């Protein structure tokens, strides 16, 4: 109970950090915190293998990629909010959404399962069990993941790895103007 409360609080605080922290780097790191907390929660739910994957894949690979891109794109400066009301609308809708989903969860009448039975069944999410499912009933899905990653790769490469078009001076001018107007807007507000 207490463990859950602490972990939940940490996860929520981390999540709030993602939303509220100004610096993208901070926000990303805050997300990493939440992800790690989630890994711990997975452990309490008899999903040890998943917890490991969570730390390795998310905390390790995906988030590092994010941080890399954040730093690459150098996206500190933010212009003034165009629609200030949107923030409060978002908070309102979010509050309602959370309430609704929580009430929905509470409406589920099922009993808490017997921990022993769960442990015997899941065996802590043993890789062997997962493998059996993955290569059994999820075999097609597993293959499709491959296709998916291929698609993602081809798509990303196609967009980024392009023979650069001949830049005309007009295009450069256009981009300059754009930047200038961006700066003006940022400064003016």
């Amino acid at each position: 109970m207490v463990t859950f409360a602490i972990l939940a609080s940490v996860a929520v605080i981390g999540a709030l950090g993602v939303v509220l922290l100004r610096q993208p780097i901070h926000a990303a790191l805050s997300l990493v915190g939440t992800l790690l907390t989630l890994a711990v929660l997975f452990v309490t739910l008899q999903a040890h293998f998943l917890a490991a994957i969570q730390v390795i894949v998310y905390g390790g690979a995906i988030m590092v990629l994010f941080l890399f891109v954040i730093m690459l794109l150098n996206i500190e400066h933010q212009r003034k909010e165009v629609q200030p009301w949107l923030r409060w609308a978002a908070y309102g809708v979010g509050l309602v959404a959370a309430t609704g989903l929580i009430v929905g969860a509470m409406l589920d009448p099922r009993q808490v399962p017997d921990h022993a039975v769960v442990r015997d069944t899941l065996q802590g999410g043993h890789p062997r069990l997962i493998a059996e499912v993955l290569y059994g009933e999820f075999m097609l899905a597993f293959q499709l993941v491959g296709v998916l990653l291929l698609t993602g790769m081809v798509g990303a490469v196609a967009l980024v790895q392009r023979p650069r078009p001949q830049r005309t001076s007009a295009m450069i001018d256009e981009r300059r103007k754009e930047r200038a107007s961006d700066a003006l807007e940022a400064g003016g507000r």
Partner: protein
Amino acid sequence: MTGDPVSWAALAPFLALAGALVNGLFGARLREPLPGVIASAAVGAAFVLSLVAFATFGERDAGVGVRLWEFMPVAGLDLAVAFHLDQLSLLMMLIITGVGALIHVYSIGYMHGDDGYARYFSALNLFVAAMLVLVMADSYPLLFVGWEGVGVCSFLLIGFWYRQKQNPDAARKAFIVNRIGDAGFLVAMFLIYRTFGTLTISEVNAAVAGFAFGAAALTGIGVLLMVAAAGKSAQLPLHVWLPDAMAGPTPVSALIHAATMVTAGVYLIARSAPLFAASPDASAVVAWVGGITALAAAIVAFAQTDIKKILAYSTISQLGFMFVAVGVGAYWVGIFHVLTHACFKGLLFLTSGSVIHGLGGEQDVRRMGGLRRLMPVTALTALVGTLAIAGVPLLSGFFSKDAILLYTFSSTLLADHGSLVLYGLLLVTAFMTAAYMGRWYLLVFEGEPRLTAESRAKVHESPRVMTVPLVVLAALSVLIGYVGLPSFAFPNLIAPWLQTATASVPFDYPPVWAEWLLIGVAVLVAAGGLALAWWVYALQSGRPVTRFGSGRLAAFARNGLGFDALYRAAVVSPSEGTAAGLALLDRDVLDRGLAASVTTAGFLARAITLLQTGYVRNYALAMLAGAVILVLVVVIAGVRA
């Protein structure tokens, strides 16, 4: 077609139609007077057929039906192009083709040299065809074919000289007023169908017996038929077109607007006699409308100065007499007056035509006078006609008018509806008839000539082709009355003949001495009227002429008792206003309004596109909000359940 000579008469309208077609299609290429000859021959042949049928009809009880082809065999209606030839229709056919033939012949001379010579005869023939269909029809719808057909021909002929604006205007007025009556006819037919389930006249007449005396349905039908009859026969308040109709060539006025078409209303009521005989209320409407019309038209006739308009109002007045006759249930008398009136009024119109022809178009009686010496045949025949219409004894008008008075006096059908008052009304009218007709004759033919220089230069007696019909008609005007001598003392040929075809209504005949007394009264009235005219217009020659137009009453009368003004104010202007208003409403309000409602759709479209802000986060908000609403719906339903 059977071997029965009576049924051959069914060809009559087609002969006239053939004449109309020949003249209509090829007339323009025919040389004068060929179109006139063709037309006259067609009508003459029709007259011969009618005469043969009339002669061979014999003592039959029922009419001869001639069924040509199916017309509208729908919804239990057995409507065919079928003719019903009985005593009534045959008599009418004789009038139409007989008088018609004479007038056709007369027209050969009268229309000499006109551009529309062939067109004229084509229309005139077409009219005869339509009129024959009207009287021969065995069903109301077919009768209506003729009914509107004569209206159309009347329209064509009134507006015959269409290049002056007033002639087409008069034609239009005639057509529209007639259409009002026709609308009444239509509704009458609908009501007949609802009441009787048939529109065949004989079936309707037979079925009347199944209804209570004075049943409301019968009264309704009767009144509606009277509306129709009033339109066609120029009875109050739908009489306004007839005086204007004098814009047409004078033979047309004689044939259509005196002898035949305008009597169609009388014929209609006589045709539906059993129905009216069973409905005193409807009959009372007929008789009273007739009586009031007779008097009112007589008053107006006094004040007119146009040679034809006097006759036109006289016609309206005489038609009123006929309506009184059929109204009180004396159907044969009504038709008898149609017959005599066709002769003498036809004659009178033709004589006035002759005068106009002789004077080169002059129509104002103030610029006539003394024509007896210049146009002797015309004057003589006109005198015969005048005396006949005035009711001078032993001439045709005397017999028919006397019969009307007598039957009105002795009516039982209208005994509760003031038949005696009507009698008085008619007596007054008869007096006035004699007086204004005397005035007409005296102003035109007697006294000093007041002709304009132009007229004086042209004046001549009409050619033989015109005077012969005058003479024939004059003879008829004298003689035709003898078919209907007062039955209490003399053999009456026409009454039993017609009663089989119409209906017999009981009358409360007075004793013989009283009948003689009534005749005496009638004679006195006629004599008095003529004497008055003589006194005013012959003895004080010259002076009364200057009194034309003086006095408010005279002006009122000259303007037809203000009916035209009334219509303009109460009907024409409001309708025109309504039309203008509706046109405006339709175009500028309703159409625009619908357009505006389309604009509302535009607002919705604008609103939707405005939501499309382009901001990703707005879209995400919409998605999330949508999803949240769905979630809430589920959760709330779950909490409730």
